[in-house]
């Protein structure tokens, strides 16, 4: 069965600095990988996905993620953080054709002015 690990509960960065939120995964087949963001008392908002193709995936709000098959990682990145990026970020994986999407425990990103 597939699984996802987000090794950092909390990431703190200064506004304007680059940010990275880490994610590693485990699947038996080819992974479908996703990043979502959750603001307080809200549902999850889709940021980006990797299914196949280029290892660098660009998504919403200036975020991107790099798929690394050898390291089984899918880290979320942004070149210049904004205070408004402060939220809870979830990595998720699906091992097709299994429709069960597994989420990580989440990483709380805090961007300080």
């Amino acid at each position, binding site marked *: 069965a597939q699984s996802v690990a987000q090794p950092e509960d909390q990431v703190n960065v200064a506004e304007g600095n680059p940010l990275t939120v880490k994610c590693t995964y485990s699947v038996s087949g080819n992974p*479908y990988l*996703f990043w*979502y963001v959750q603001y307080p*008392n*809200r*549902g*999850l*908002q*889709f940021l980006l*996905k990797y*299914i196949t193709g280029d290892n660098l995936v660009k998504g919403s709000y200036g975020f991107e993620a790099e798929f690394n098959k050898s390291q089984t990682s899918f880290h979320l990145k942004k070149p210049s953080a904004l205070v408004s990026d402060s939220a809870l970020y*979830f990595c*998720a994986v*699906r091992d*097709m*054709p*299994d*429709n*069960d*999407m*597994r*989420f*990580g*425990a*989440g990483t709380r990103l805090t961007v300080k002015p």
Partner: protein
Amino acid sequence: DAGVTQSPTHLIKTRGQQVTLRCSPKSGHDTVSWYQQALGQGPQFIFQYYEEEERQRGNFPDRFSGHQYPNYSSELNVNALLLGDSALYLCASSLGDGNEQFFGPGTRLTVL
């Protein structure tokens, strides 16, 4: 174009009661998935409905059941509520396999 909608927003029940949560998918979407998100944790997959059938189920007891209607809307039913069922219940819709899921705002269930 309305996104995924869920009702009610909040719900308070007592142990042993039954609850029904409702979800309307994003326009054009035919697949609905339900998740339970306990405080401080990531969402956990409950089940997925497609063409009015339960297509996949996570590790949840039979007290959790669902339904999908011909208009693709869905319900989540939980019987014999336990304190541990207190959580944010999220509905997500998608079109086809492998595509991103769009989430609703959730229903916050509190069991006393």
